[in-house]
């Protein structure tokens, strides 16, 4: 628990405890109701402070998520040897088509360029 939240919570919980004691011995119903309303208000303050703490961490979380997305992109980028063979097969196939379409005797030089 961060110091800020701890202090806020302790402050309000002490105030709530005091109001509980006050209301337990206060004979005036209206004053008791006012104390009860104050207790609810303080509890809401604690809830709000804790939600604020979660919200203020969200920017850091989103930065971390972007970092992780970059790692995922890196890990999935590029192929393996098997993938490279597939690519090479495609290139060879295209070259073979080109050779078949050209005159005889030029195949070796075309092959040299492709290789």
């Amino acid at each position, binding site marked *: 628990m961060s110091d800020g939240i701890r202090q806020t919570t302790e402050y309000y919980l002490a105030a709530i405890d005091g109001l509980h004691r006050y209301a337990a011995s206060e004979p005036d119903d209206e004053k008791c109701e006012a104390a009860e309303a104050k207790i609810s208000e303080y509890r809401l303050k604690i809830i709000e402070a804790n939600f604020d703490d*979660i919200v203020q961490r969200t920017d850091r979380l989103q930065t971390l998520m972007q970092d992780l997305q970059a*790692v995922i992109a890196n890990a999935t980028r590029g192929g393996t040897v098997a993938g490279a*063979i597939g690519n090479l097969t495609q290139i060879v196939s295209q070259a073979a088509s080109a050779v078949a379409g050209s005159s005889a005797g030029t195949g070796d030089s075309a092959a040299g360029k492709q290789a």
Partner: protein
Amino acid sequence: MLRFHAHWICALSNAEPALMVRKAFVLLAVSLAACAGVPQKEFEVYRSNFNTAKATAEDIILQAKLDAEQTAKLPANKDPVAERDRKLAERTAALDARLAALNLIAQYNAVLVALADGDDPAAVQSNLQNLSKGLSSFGSSKLTALVANAGPLAGMISQAVTIVDALIKQKKFRDATIQAQPAILGILHVLQEDADRIHAIQVQLVELRRDSDWNKVISLKKRLAKMANGYAKSSELDGVAGQYDKQIARIQPPPSEPTLFDLDYAPSGNTKATDAEIEVMKGMVDEVTRHVDSYNAFGDEIEAHGKAISQYKALLDSVTLSFNAMSAAESSPQFEAVTQQVVKQGLALRQAVLGYQEARHK
């Protein structure tokens, strides 16, 4: 990669292609043996821990979203409607970001699974055959001879390609693990910090409902004291006061000030209470009993939520430990201990969550 493969082809074009490939294969095999390999066991433990933690984290975060909605509607909330809506939208977005972060880690784990799985050797073989076929149709006498020489070695080349693939994937796996470490550990740390906040919110929302029982008991105490003290002392009246004290003694946890609920029983009237008046006072004690039961049930709910959050945090710790173990890729006795600890924590968390759900439905 193409350049790498071309280098192989050049090697094959030498006078002794078979020898060259054999040498390359041996070198690769030695390299593979020298590598630690993908730490499958550690990875599986990490993934299993994460999946358990993710399911629980989602439950807890979804509950927190409901808490945010409830907070916006609380009677004690005096903010204007527009301000309540703004805060609710902000809190919902923050909690949705947590859910998205969990899904992103799951996505990252799926990438690791793909990297940890080796290529199917049959697929590599098929690619290689296609390559040979492609080269044969090239019409080049030099390359045709090369393919002819390479033909008998196809199986060996296929194995070598598989090994190189495995090495590349291992490197990618290792890189992905090392590079993701700050982000993964950072996200897990944010979830850890959130856990305490979510618990504090849940506690106060339950306390708001529990205050209602507290206030009712205080109010009943005052009414009962006022009525009882107006009559003369009697055994029946003593019996009512005794029943009240018994019920107050059941309050858990006991109030910080022990005398807070004391009846201050001091009957000072001149007339004894009639049977009907005693019955009215007994009715008040019955009402006290109901509110004490309800008050204690809310206490159980808070305690159960605390246990579930505590176990959840321990499980997040275990995910962190198992991720670190995977990064270090050390199959050590310490790792075995972490694994056993995780299994225990997973079971404890399940029990804690069930306990919390049971307490909520009381």
